[in-house]
């Protein structure tokens, strides 16, 4: 192969997949070296810092596991909630449509932090919901569902009306039409933003630490107050969240390939 193909995408000549991977790895190594140079001379990481934090690895491990549980359940719940809200938004029944608009606008227009505090201390308490984990998962699902509903709605509306017409003509019920004709096509369209929203959801779960849910971020806070090693306590968070969000985007890319109609 010629040298140019190593740097430039050329029309009519497919770039081998390993070229992209090579650049990705090279940039990662450069980034690591840069970090080493910049931080090597700084006084931020003092001796014994990592050892002090390493003693608390079990705290991190437990928090990370809880974050996985919270994220997974919220992911499923928010997708259901988002789908329902998207369908209500298209409902011929006007009060339901307005309900969906109100939900989406209120949630998307206010900070998640405020929602967590208000819904947990005011609403959950007054309806007698004591379990903070359950409350936290519900609040997070409610939050993410609003964003998902707009994506799902956009996906549904991108499917041409002739598809619905054709589904009706062969005698499918409205539900079957969604299930077999509209949603599979809509899903394919919105997979990239959907994966992004799921990654956001995983990171947003960190805010649940403020109502005392012992997830990953709270674990880091605890380690920090026990060791006074701030950066050493919080840097593992970056790695831990990356380990959760990267598989989501890899999975979405794999699904995207599988759902490609031309395949």
């Amino acid at each position, binding site marked *: 192969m010629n040298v140019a193909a190593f740097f430039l995408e050329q029309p009519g000549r497919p770039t081998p997949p390993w070229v992209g991977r090579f650049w990705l790895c090279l940039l990662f190594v450069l980034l690591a070296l840069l970090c080493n140079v910049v931080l090597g001379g700084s006084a931020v990481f003092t001796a014994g810092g990592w050892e002090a934090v390493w003693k608390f690895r079990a705290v991190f491990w437990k928090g990370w596991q809880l974050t996985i549980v919270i994220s997974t359940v919220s992911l499923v719940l928010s997708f259901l909630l988002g789908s329902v809200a998207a369908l209500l938004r298209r409902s011929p029944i006007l009060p339901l449509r307005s309900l969906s608009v109100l939900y989406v606008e209120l949630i998307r227009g206010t900070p998640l932090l405020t929602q967590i505090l208000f819904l947990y201390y005011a609403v959950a308490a007054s309806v007698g919901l004591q379990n903070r984990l359950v409350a936290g998962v519900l609040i997070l699902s409610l939050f993410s569902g609003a964003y998902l509903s707009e994506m799902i709605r956009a996906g549904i509306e991108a499917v041409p009306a*002739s*598809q619905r*017409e*054709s*589904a*009706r*003509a*062969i*005698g*499918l*019920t409205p539900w*079957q039409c969604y299930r*077999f*004709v509209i949603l*599979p*096509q809509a899903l*394919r369209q919105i997979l990239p933003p959907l994966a992004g929203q799921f990654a956001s959801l995983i990171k947003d779960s960190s805010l649940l630490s403020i109502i005392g849910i012992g997830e990953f971020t709270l674990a880091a806070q605890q380690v920090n107050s026990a060791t006074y090693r701030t950066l050493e306590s919080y840097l593992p968070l970056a790695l831990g969240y990356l380990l959760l969000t990267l598989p989501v985007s890899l999975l979405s890319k794999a699904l995207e390939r599988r*759902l490609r*109609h*031309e*395949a």
Partner: protein
Amino acid sequence: MKLELHGIIKSFLSEGKPQRALDGVTFVSEFPHVLALIGPSGGGKSTLLRILAGLTAPDSGEVRIDGALLPTSERELRATRSRLGVVFQSFNLFPHMTALANVMLPLVRVHGMPETEAKERALQIMERLGLADHAGKYPLQLSGGQSQRVAIARALAPKPRLLLFDEPTSALDPEMTAEVLALIAELRESHTPMILVTHEIGFARRIADRIAFLAEGRVLEERLAGDFFSSPGTEEARRFLAKVLAY
């Protein structure tokens, strides 16, 4: 097949004002194989076909197919639709399914046929329509003519009592048009009656038993195909034929 229409009116909103697409369509037609609906563009042919297909209900008037009144409620219309086959101008295949899955979908989901039986029936019909090699392909991999044949297979698979074609060759180039028209002509002998909206006047003349001529939202005449072309009964039909047959 006997088709009876009485006083069909259908309006649409166009730029805020109601526009009558069908303005009292009344006619009776009895035909063994094919009824062709022809007439100038904007005359209401496609709207009438959509009503016959149960896709939309008229504002007023009634339709009887072999004596049975076409229902007006959506739920009953759905049952009616499942017993009719419709072929659209732009094929409307489902792009995320293979050709075979497209043909199987109504069999399995609407008619409750077991997968294996549905697959057998679908493959059998696709083979008959010359699609045996294309069963595993996705619609984007098919030519226009092949797509329309798959759409015909999908409409035909549940053994409908009536097949409706809405300008089935308007989106095709001449070669593929010929391919699809040949297939429709072949289906004529299959004992499934057909109603055909078409711009292919020469084809309508060759294949149709009877012609219904639609203009300005009404059926102006309904006659034996031979009679219609040799001596049209209305001034509108005469002018229409003179125009389309001039070249």
